[in-house]
C-alpha cells in the first residue's frame, strides 16, 4: 500500500515539476531574472509553517526535490537549461516554504561558459560543476 502511495506522490511531483517548467520557460524569456525570482518568492507558500534555513527538516526535503527535478527534466527529449531547472527547483522549494539561493557563475577557460544552480544554506542542491569558484551573482 505504501509503495502505491509513494508512486502516486512521485507522479504528482513529476507533474508539478513539468507544469512549473512550462511556466518557467515563459517567465525567463521575459526579462530580468531577479524579477522572475522575486515574483516566485512573493507567492504564498503552500505550507503555513516555513522551514528554517538549514534546518534538519529542510535539507532532506530540499535534496529530494532537487533529485526529482534533475530526474524529471533530465528525461525530457529537449535540452533543459540549467537556469530553467534552477528556477523550477527554486519555485518548488518556495512553495514548500524552504528558502534557497539561485547562483549564476561563469568560467572563461578553456572557453567562456555560464552555469546556474541552486543552494540551500550555502550548500548546492543542483551541481555547480566546475563553476563553484566563478560565482557572479546570488539571487
Amino acid at each position, binding site marked *: 500500500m505504501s509503495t502505491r502511495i509513494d508512486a502516486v506522490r512521485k507522479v504528482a511531483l513529476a507533474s508539478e515539476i513539468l507544469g512549473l517548467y512550462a511556466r518557467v520557460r515563459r517567465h*525567463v524569456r521575459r*526579462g*530580468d*531574472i*531577479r524579477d522572475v525570482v522575486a515574483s516566485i518568492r512573493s507567492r504564498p507558500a503552500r505550507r503555513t509553517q516555513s522551514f528554517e534555513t538549514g534546518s534538519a527538516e529542510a535539507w532532506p526535503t530540499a535534496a529530494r526535490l532537487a533529485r526529482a527535478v534533475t530526474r524529471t527534466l533530465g528525461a525530457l527529449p529537449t535540452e533543459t537549461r540549467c537556469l530553467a531547472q534552477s528556477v523550477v527547483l527554486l519555485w518548488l522549494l518556495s512553495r514548500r516554504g524552504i528558502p534557497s539561493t539561485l547562483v*549564476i557563475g*561563469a*568560467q*572563461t*577557460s578553456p572557453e*567562456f561558459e*555560464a552555469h546556474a544552480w541552486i543552494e540551500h544554506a550555502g550548500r548546492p542542491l543542483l551541481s555547480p560543476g566546475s563553476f563553484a569558484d*566563478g*560565482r*557572479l*551573482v546570488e539571487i
Partner: protein
Amino acid sequence: MTLTSRTERADALLASRVRVPDDVVYRSFGHESVVLSLAEGKYHSVNATGGRTLEILDQVGSVSRTATLLADEYGRELSEVEDDLIEFCELLVDRRLLIVEPA
C-alpha cells in the same frame, strides 16, 4: 568649420558622472572580466584592462577621475587614456552596461 581633437560629445562624456546599473554584475577572472546584464540575460567579456576600467568607473563614478587613476596605474599619457576611455565608455553605454547620470 574648426577641426578639434575631440568632439563635444566626447568632452561631455569625459565630464560626466556615470554608474554601473543595478542589473549589471561583473567579475574579474584574471586575464578577462565577465559582465552580466541580468535585465537582458546577456554575458559580455572584456579584457583585464577593460575589467579594471569598469571597476574604477563603478567605484569613483567620474570619467575624468577614472582617466587620471588609469593613467597613473598604467604609466600612460593622460590624453591617450582619455581617448581610449571615452571610446570604452561609449561602448558600455551602447550595451546598457553603464549609465551616464544627468548633469
